[in-house]
């Protein structure tokens, strides 16, 4: 019953998102939707740790950047194909997540924030230091990839759009599977009552580490995809703006919900793009809006959607009782 509902939701999302390129001819809008999907994936995987696991960490941007840099370095210096490169990005993020996670997940709360914060800066320093490999401040430029001997660019808008969509769906199924699995159950029980969970034989360190590592993989994949799409990688990948976008997607959409971060990412990406006319003032207005949203919509937009849905479905049942739960 439950999984049937999820299947329907996935189908609806796939249907809507896959017909958009046929209806909307403007490449710009496709570009924005694609960015939203990519940012949504990174945010919702981060949400696995923050929302479901209750471990607030700042390593998601380093994961994203690790994916981007690893694939860019291998493809520029060794001519690695982007198809493998995207997978390599995920693997790089997983390796990084083990390096960070094994020591860092022993501490909690504000100390975990600090630890991951320090790793962020160490990675940035390394990228800036090894100029020969990473291109330093200037970054690296990736060559367009042709399919075979043809002149068709492998990263043409339609192909990239559907690649992003497949990653989007993959991520949804991936997260849903984890949440419904024993790991997800253990994770949520640790978040809600660690003492009880431990008394039932759950090893908190192991479960947290597994989640941390799992949630890094698609962030790395997205980093790699993003870099191939832009055809350039620079230290801007470590920007605060990424951190804010991902984190705010989670909070605005709804912490600890499946669709919240995705919704948040779409809203934020479109908001950011629609504020382009403000030019220099864009970031100022964006910052102000962010604070206002946090103050006036603390529970996230997904709660509004849930409420609307519950009113709608209770009317349909015609039971006469409005479900006040949500």
């Amino acid at each position, binding site marked *: 019953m439950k999984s049937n509902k999820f299947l329907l939701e996935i189908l609806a999302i796939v249907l809507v998102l896959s017909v958009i390129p046929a209806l909307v001819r403007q490449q710009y809008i496709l570009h924005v939707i694609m960015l939203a999907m990519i940012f949504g994936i990174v945010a919702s995987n981060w949400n696995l740790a923050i929302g479901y696991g209750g471990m607030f960490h700042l390593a998601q941007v380093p994961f994203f950047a690790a994916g981007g840099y690893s694939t860019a370095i291998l493809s520029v210096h060794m001519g690695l194909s982007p198809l493998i490169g995207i997978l390599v990005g995920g693997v790089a993020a997983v390796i990084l997540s083990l390096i960070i996670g094994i020591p860092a997940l022993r*501490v909690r709360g504000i100390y975990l924030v600090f*630890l991951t914060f320090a790793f962020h*800066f160490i990675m940035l320093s390394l990228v800036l*230091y090894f100029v020969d490999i990473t291109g330093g401040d200037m970054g690296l430029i990736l060559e367009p990839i042709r399919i075979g001997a043809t002149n068709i660019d492998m990263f043409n808008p339609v192909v990239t759009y559907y690649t992003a969509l497949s990653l989007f769906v993959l991520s949804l199924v991936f997260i849903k599977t984890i949440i419904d699995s024993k790991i997800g159950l253990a994770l949520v029980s640790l978040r809600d009552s660690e003492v009880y969970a431990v008394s039932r034989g759950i090893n908190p360190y192991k479960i947290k580490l597994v989640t941390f590592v799992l949630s890094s993989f698609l962030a790395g994949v997205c980093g790699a995809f993003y870099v191939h799409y832009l055809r350039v990688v620079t230290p801007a990948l470590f920007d605060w703006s990424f951190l804010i976008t991902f984190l705010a997607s989670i*909070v605005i959409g709804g912490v600890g919900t499946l669709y919240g971060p995705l919704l948040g990412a779409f809203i934020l990406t479109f908001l950011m793009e629609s504020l382009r006319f403000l030019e220099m003032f864009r970031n*100022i207005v964006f910052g102000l809006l962010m*604070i206002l949203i946090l103050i006036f919509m*603390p529970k996230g937009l997904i709660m509004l959607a849930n409420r609307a849905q519950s009113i709608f479905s209770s009317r349909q049942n015609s039971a006469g009782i409005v479900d006040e739960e949500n």
Partner: protein
Amino acid sequence: MFSDIASAIIIGLVLGSMYALAAVGLTLVWGVLKILNFAHGGFITLGAYFVWVGITFLGGNYVISFLLVMGLTFLLGFVLNAGVIRPLQGRPESETNIFIATLATSIIIENLIIVGFGGRYKSIPEMASGSLTLGSISINFQQMIIMAVAPVFLVGLMYYLKKMKSGMAVRAVAQDADGAAIVGIDSERVYSYTIAIGALMAGVAGVLLGVIFYLSPGMGGDPLVRALFIMVLGGMGSVKGTIYGAYIIGIIDALARYFIGMFWASPILFVMFILLLLLRPQGLFGVKV
């Protein structure tokens, strides 16, 4: 060799003075409100730009410009509390929300500075020129002024917290907000004072930073990160520990810059930060967590 070490230590004391000012505000706010104010770096930047504006447009008077910085950052601290922090406090997820909101505030500040003054580097004219030479070691007057100004503010803050009535109220709320409420302390008021004092300290730190380094819209980021390290080293929330921690980090920073290289100072500090967090998260003076 001896003179190298001595000069590095002098630079370390100068850096330590600035870091101490940058970190005490952060620590104080953490100790009282249990929040991490990421707008703190933005206030450091504001302090530097305000003093630059004062000196450039008000006829080069350092004293008036300095007072201007103190007044403005103090007032803006109240604005920060009323507009950003207070509305989010005490709610579910407030930790995450305040983190994002104060980060957003620092982005707003940075971009306001870009809009207002442009992104180019600026520099504040020298406060005092010349230097004092003792054998092979020389200290310039600017560095001496910084080493003298910082303790005045730090001791002032300690005096305020220990002896003055509203300072005692701050400490009372930090120790036990409920207990403080019972004896009639308005914790909301204390919160806003604390944030304003923290902002003022950040502003003063910004002035001193602006005097020796260049001004740029993102200049507050680096001292903020070091302030986080210092805050943990001093034992989260301990003002005294933070001051000791700041001078220790300042000297380590200067020695690393001097003997290993400008570039490596930051990564070395970060590695030390990670080791500190893993091995002794309670810091030098904090209680065990």
